[in-house]
C-alpha cells in the first residue's frame, strides 16, 4: 500500500507552499485597496501555514524513507487536486466566484495552465483575484511540486519520482546530478524569462500589473487574460509579438536553455525536437497566413502574419491567448489549429498537449512497421536524432496516445450529454485535456465554459489536471491495481 507518513508530510508541505503563495496576491490586494480580498488571502495563508506546519511537526522524521512509484503517483495526483481545491477557496469566500464548482474549475484551469474560463465579466473581478488567477499559471507551469523540491530539499525524501510524475515528456532530463539541483536551475531559468518578458512589455508601455499577469500566463503557457478579449484588448503589434515570441520560448524544453546559458548552444540548435517544433510553427503559420490572404480574410500580408503567427504560437504552446477569433477563420485553418492542439510543445517545457517528441516517435514506429511489412525479418530500432529510442519508451508513448484517444472520445460522449453539438463537445474536451483554453463554436475564443453543468465542469477540471500530468499520474489512481495490496 501507499506510504501514508511520507504522503501526509508532503501534503502538509504542499499546504504551506500554497498558503505562502497566497501572500503575494494578498499584497496585491492591499496595494489596490481591496481590503476584503486581502483579508481572504491572508486568512487562507494563516490557516494553511498553521495546519501545514502542525502536520510537518507532528509527523516523525522520515530520513532515508523510500518513495516508490506508487507513492510518487499518489502524491502528485492528490496534490494537484488539492491545489485546485485550496486555490479555489479565496475565489469562493470573497464572493468573486460564488459557486465552488466554478471556482474549482477556474483554479484547475489556472494551475494546469489551461486557460479555459467560466467568467463572463472578467474586467469586474478585483485585481488581487485576477493576479491569483494568473499566478496559478506560473506556479503550475513548471510544476508546483518541482518548486517544492527546489526550495525544500530538507523534506528528506527522494524527489526523483515526484519530479518524474510532474514533468512533461516521455523521458526526464536531469541537467545536474541531483533532482534538487535540476529543479533549482529550471526555476531560475523560468523566473529569468518571466522577468525579461515583464521588462519588455513594460518598455513597450504596458502597465506593470498587466505585464506581470500576462507574463505569468505566457511563460506558464496558461492563457487566462484579465480582459474578455484577451490580448486583442491592446490592439498593439509590439505587445503581440513580444507575447508570441515568449510563448514560443515557453514551448521549448527548458533543459535546452540550461545548455544555451552554459555555453553549449550547439546542443540546443541540434536538438531534433527543437528543430521539428520550429518547423511545425513555420509551416502552420505560412499555411494559415496563405489561407487568410487567399480567402480575403485579411487584406495585407502583415496582418495575416500578425494574427496567424500569434494564434499558431498560442495554440501549439497550449497557451490560449487570443488576438483574433480563429473560430471565424476558414475551415482548413480551424483544422490546422485543431491538429496543433494535439501536438503541443516540446517535452520538458511548460506547454501541454502530447508533445512534439511523441509524434516523432510515433512516426518512427509507423515507418519501422511499414519497413517490416516489406522485409519481414528486419529488426531496426527507432532513432531520433541518431539516438536509439528504448523499446519501453516507445511502448509508453504508444499507450499514452491510445489512452489519450480513449479518454478524449469517452469524455466527448459525456460532454455531449449536456446538450451541446459535436464540435463544441469535442473541442471543449481537447481544449481542456491538452491544456489549450479556447475551443470551437460554443467554447470558442470569444466564448467561455459557463454553459456546462457542474458535473461536466468537474469532469473538464479533472481532464485539465490529467492533461497537465500527462494522464497516467491521475488515471492510475482510478485503476483497481493501484489500490490492491
Amino acid at each position, binding site marked *: 500500500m501507499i506510504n501514508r507518513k511520507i504522503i501526509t508530510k508532503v501534503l502538509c508541505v504542499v499546504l504551506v507552499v500554497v498558503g505562502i503563495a497566497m501572500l503575494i496576491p494578498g499584497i496585491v490586494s492591499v496595494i489596490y485597496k481591496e481590503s476584503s480580498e486581502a483579508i481572504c488571502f491572508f486568512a487562507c495563508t494563516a490557516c494553511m501555514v498553521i495546519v501545514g506546519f502542525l502536520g510537518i511537526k507532528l509527523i516523525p522524521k522520515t530520513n532515508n524513507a523510500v518513495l516508490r512509484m506508487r507513492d510518487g503517483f499518489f502524491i502528485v495526483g492528490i496534490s494537484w487536486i488539492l491545489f485546485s481545491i485550496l486555490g479555489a477557496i479565496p475565489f469562493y469566500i470573497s464572493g468573486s466566484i460564488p459557486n465552488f464548482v466554478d471556482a474549482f474549475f477556474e483554479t484547475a484551469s489556472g494551475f494546469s495552465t489551461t486557460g479555459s474560463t467560466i467568467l463572463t465579466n472578467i474586467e469586474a473581478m478585483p485585481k488581487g483575484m485576477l493576479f491569483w488567477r494568473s499566478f496559478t499559471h506560473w506556479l503550475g507551469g513548471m510544476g508546483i511540486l518541482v518548486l517544492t523540491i527546489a526550495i525544500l530539499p530538507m523534506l528528506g525524501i527522494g524527489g526523483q519520482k515526484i519530479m518524474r510524475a510532474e514533468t512533461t515528456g516521455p523521458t526526464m532530463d536531469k541537467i545536474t546530478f541531483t533532482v534538487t539541483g535540476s529543479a533549482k536551475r529550471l526555476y531560475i531559468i523560468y523566473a529569468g524569462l518571466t522577468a525579461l518578458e515583464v521588462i519588455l512589455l513594460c518598455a513597450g508601455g504596458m502597465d506593470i500589473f498587466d505585464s506581470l499577469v500576462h507574463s505569468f500566463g505566457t511563460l506558464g503557457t496558461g492563457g487566462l487574460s484579465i480582459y474578455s478579449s484577451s490580448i486583442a484588448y491592446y490592439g498593439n503589434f509590439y505587445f503581440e509579438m513580444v507575447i508570441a515570441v515568449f510563448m514560443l520560448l515557453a514551448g521549448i524544453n527548458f533543459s535546452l536553455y540550461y545548455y544555451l546559458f552554459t555555453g553549449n548552444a550547439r546542443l540546443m540548435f541540434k536538438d531534433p525536437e527543437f528543430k521539428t517544433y520550429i518547423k511545425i510553427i513555420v509551416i502552420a503559420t505560412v499555411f494559415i497566413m496563405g489561407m487568410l490572404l487567399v480567402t480575403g480574410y485579411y487584406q495585407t500580408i502583415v496582418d495575416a502574419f500578425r494574427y496567424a503567427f500569434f494564434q499558431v504560437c498560442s495554440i501549439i504552446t497550449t497557451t490560449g491567448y487570443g488576438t483574433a477569433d480563429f473560430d471565424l477563420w476558414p475551415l482548413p485553418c*480551424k*483544422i490546422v489549429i485543431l491538429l496543433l492542439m494535439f501536438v503541443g510543445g516540446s517535452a520538458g517545457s511548460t506547454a501541454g498537449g502530447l508533445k512534439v517528441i511523441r509524434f516523432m516517435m510515433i512516426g518512427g514506429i509507423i515507418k519501422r512497421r511499414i519497413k517490416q511489412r516489406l522485409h519481414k525479418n528486419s529488426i531496426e530500432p527507432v532513432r531520433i536524432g541518431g539516438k536509439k529510442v528504448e523499446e519501453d519508451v516507445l511502448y509508453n508513448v504508444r499507450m499514452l496516445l491510445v*489512452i489519450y484517444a480513449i479518454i478524449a472520445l469517452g469524455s466527448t460522449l459525456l460532454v*455531449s450529454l449536456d446538450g451541446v453539438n459535436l464540435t463544441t463537445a469535442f473541442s471543449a474536451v481537447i481544449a481542456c485535456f491538452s491544456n489549450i483554453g479556447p475551443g470551437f463554436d460554443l467554447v470558442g475564443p470569444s466564448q467561455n465554459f459557463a454553459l456546462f453543468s457542474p458535473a461536466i465542469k468537474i469532469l473538464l477540471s479533472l481532464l485539465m489536471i490529467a492533461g497537465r500530468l500527462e494522464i497516467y499520474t491521475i*488515471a*492510475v489512481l482510478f485503476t483497481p491495481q493501484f489500490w490492491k495490496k
Partner: protein
Amino acid sequence: MQTFIDIISVLSFSGFSRFADSVISKLAFTKMLASFGMTDAIAWIIIIILSIGINDAIICAKNVGRSFILKLHPKAVVSFKYKKRLLSNSELEQSSINVLFTLACELVLTFILSFEAASVSDALMLSAAIIGNDGWLLLLIGKTNLLAQFSYGMQIFICIVLLLCRVNLIRTIKTKLELKKNAL
C-alpha cells in the same frame, strides 16, 4: 457523378449510395434511434470504433490495462488471452499501431475534407465514416447525401479512399477462400 458514387459505394459496402440513402432513412429503426436521442457525438464515436475494428479496439483496451500495471510494477510480466489464446507482444504492438494509424489517417483526411466541408463536425464525421466505410451510420442520424457538398474532384478522391480502405477486407476474404480451397 452520382451513379459513379453509387457504384463505388456499393462495391465498398460503405453506404454512401442513393440506394442506401433511401432505404435506411425509411427504416423504423432509424426513426427509433432519432427518438432515443442518437446524437452526432454518439454516432461519431461508434463510427470511429468501427473504423478501428472491434478486434483491435478490444486488444488495445486490454493493452491499456497492461500499461497501467507496468507503470506501477515496471518489472511485472503481464500477458492476457483473447479468443482463447495468449497474445504475443508483436500482436499487441500491431493493434496499438493499427489504432494510431487509423486515427492519424482520419485526422489527415479531416484536414483534406476541410477545404470543402461545411463544418468541423461534418469533416470529422465524414473522415471517420470514409476510413471505416461506415457511411450508413451517418444515414442513421439523418445525415443524408453528405457527399453532395463536395466538388467532383473531391468526390472522386473520396471514392478512391473508400476503395482503398476496402482493399484490406477484400484481401482477408480472398485469403479465407484460399484457405478453404486448400482445406478441401
